[in-house]
């Protein structure tokens, strides 16, 4: 049996969890197992879980566990696995999923494979995981009675495949005070200022080629005309030319606009990790050998400080 750890918001499984359930079904098809799920949440989750192929839902509703506490959640999951003996415990590769699973691994003295993209379940399990910020795949072998895995987000689409019935059973873990020493005290639902970059239709990015904070002036001007949002590569945030919240890249915002105009950006893999979901990429760069050109649909070879003002002029005249 494959046990899936499901995260939810307001009683609905979140998207990474639904993707994880979909991935679990393809794994179950390989191993001939059934799928069960566990969540720190209400019975009402069962309806949605049934739509995604879950036959049994282990609901943990202890009040003190409703606010996230990594160790306490992990101890609960470990106790559940000891009670129902799954072959796999699979979690979404989110910040919480990876953290809780790290604790489950530590508590059980087992290895955890994070950010998994593919599983070949044979005598020994050969697992392909996302490595180098999505730039490489890495194959590892594990040989454990209980495989502890987290799924790289957006590896598979969330797709429904309903079963007739999903039984809900409650599980009550035995916990100690020390398991709550790192627990969320409060959550500020802050306005995410990076959100506009993440959701924009058009994004303009500046890299080393901007040369300074002032160098972003022409990009801002173009952004205003095209109603696009301006971001920067890590070089620009590191030099203080641009605030970190405007960073596009592996450790910043991940964007997916209709068009990304990358100006003076070389195209390091860390940057590509943040912009590769763009539908179209247009590069403006003085170096025609820049890696960015091999990821782009359109290119202009030239200095952004000359090309971008010319584009602005052209737009004003037309």
């Amino acid at each position: 049996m494959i046990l899936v750890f499901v995260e939810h918001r307001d009683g609905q499984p979140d998207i990474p969890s639904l993707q994880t359930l979909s991935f679990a079904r393809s794994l179950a098809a390989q191993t001939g197992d059934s799928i069960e799920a566990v969540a720190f949440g209400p019975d009402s989750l069962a309806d949605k879980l049934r739509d995604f192929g879950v036959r049994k839902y282990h609901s943990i509703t202890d009040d003190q566990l409703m606010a996230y506490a990594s160790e306490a959640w992990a101890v609960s999951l470990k106790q559940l696995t000891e009670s129902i003996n799954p072959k796999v415990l699979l979690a979404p590769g989110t910040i919480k999923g990876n953290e809780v699973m790290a604790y489950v691994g530590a508590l059980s003295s087992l290895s955890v494979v994070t950010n998994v993209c593919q599983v070949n379940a044979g005598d020994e399990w050969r697992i392909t995981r996302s490595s180098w910020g999505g730039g490489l795949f890495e194959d590892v072998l594990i040989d454990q009675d209980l495989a502890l895995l987290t799924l790289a987000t957006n590896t598979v689409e969330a797709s429904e495949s309903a079963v007739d019935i999903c039984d809900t059973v409650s599980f009550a873990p035995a916990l100690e005070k020390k398991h709550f020493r790192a627990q969320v005290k409060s959550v500020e639902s802050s306005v995410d200022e990076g959100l506009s970059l993440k959701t924009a239709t058009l994004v303009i990015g500046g890299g080393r080629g901007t040369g300074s904070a002032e160098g972003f002036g022409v990009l801002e001007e173009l952004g205003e005309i095209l109603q696009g949002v301006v971001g920067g590569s890590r070089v620009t945030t590191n030099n203080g030319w641009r605030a970190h919240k405007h960073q596009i890249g592996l450790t910043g915002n991940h964007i997916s606009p209709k068009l990304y105009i990358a100006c003076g950006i070389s195209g390091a893999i860390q940057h590509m990790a943040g912009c590769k979901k763009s539908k179209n990429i247009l590069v403006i760069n003085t170096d025609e050998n820049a890696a960015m050109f091999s990821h782009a649909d359109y290119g202009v070879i030239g200095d952004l400080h000359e090309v971008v003002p010319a584009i602005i002029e052209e737009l004003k005249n037309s």
Partner: protein
Amino acid sequence: MNILVCIKQIPDVGGKIKLSDDGRDIDSRNLGFTISPHEECAVEQAIQLVKKDGGSATVLTLGNADSEEQLRDSLARGMDKGVLLHTENSNWNANQIARAITDTIKKMETDDGTFDLILFGSESADRGNAQVGVLVAHALDRPSVNGINGLEVEGNSALVKRDSDEGTENYELVLAAVLSVKDGMNVPRFPSLRGTLMAKKKPIQFIEVEPDDTGTSFQNFEHVPEQRKQAVILGRGPEAAASVVQVLRRLELVE
């Protein structure tokens, strides 16, 4: 306040990763080396905290002899001393790394007292397992939070902020604690010339380590199949502007 920061040397791969023939390593023969952005922020945080509250900031890495360069770089920025867990074996899994680091921390703490804070980067820039911080915290029986975006130390508590889908989570941990830091928490300083000169004289302790033979076994890397594109070159210099505007029209981004 005594702080330990753990960093990891990685090749600075730029736009394309080249693999060795057997796929077991990055071909780094023509590459420089660096550490992850997350770790740079962890180093900066330690330097700022020690500047404010006094104490000592130690930087530790597990890697080959060349990793000394990354330790010296952190020392040049303002860390006080370094520890190099030396191994020429490049394939350590997260559990093996965590055990080697934990053993070292236990020995160091017996001699010099407890680290109030042990900082990691949120995940390493290469394998990115995001496991080692938690494994070390568990082995030392200390609280931990992964991937934090804000930290203030007040007396014996660490006030921690972490961004999640729901908003910003607030934690209050009793020290000693283990935290892994996300890029953007601060703007890391660059080493000064004076710092670079001073770093040459700062102490680095070398300890030999080897991985035990448990857990996952690494097989090889593979390239992610990518749709390499051949960009349509719209032109050179400002003359290309008209063609760019045509593209914008075609994509219905301008009237």
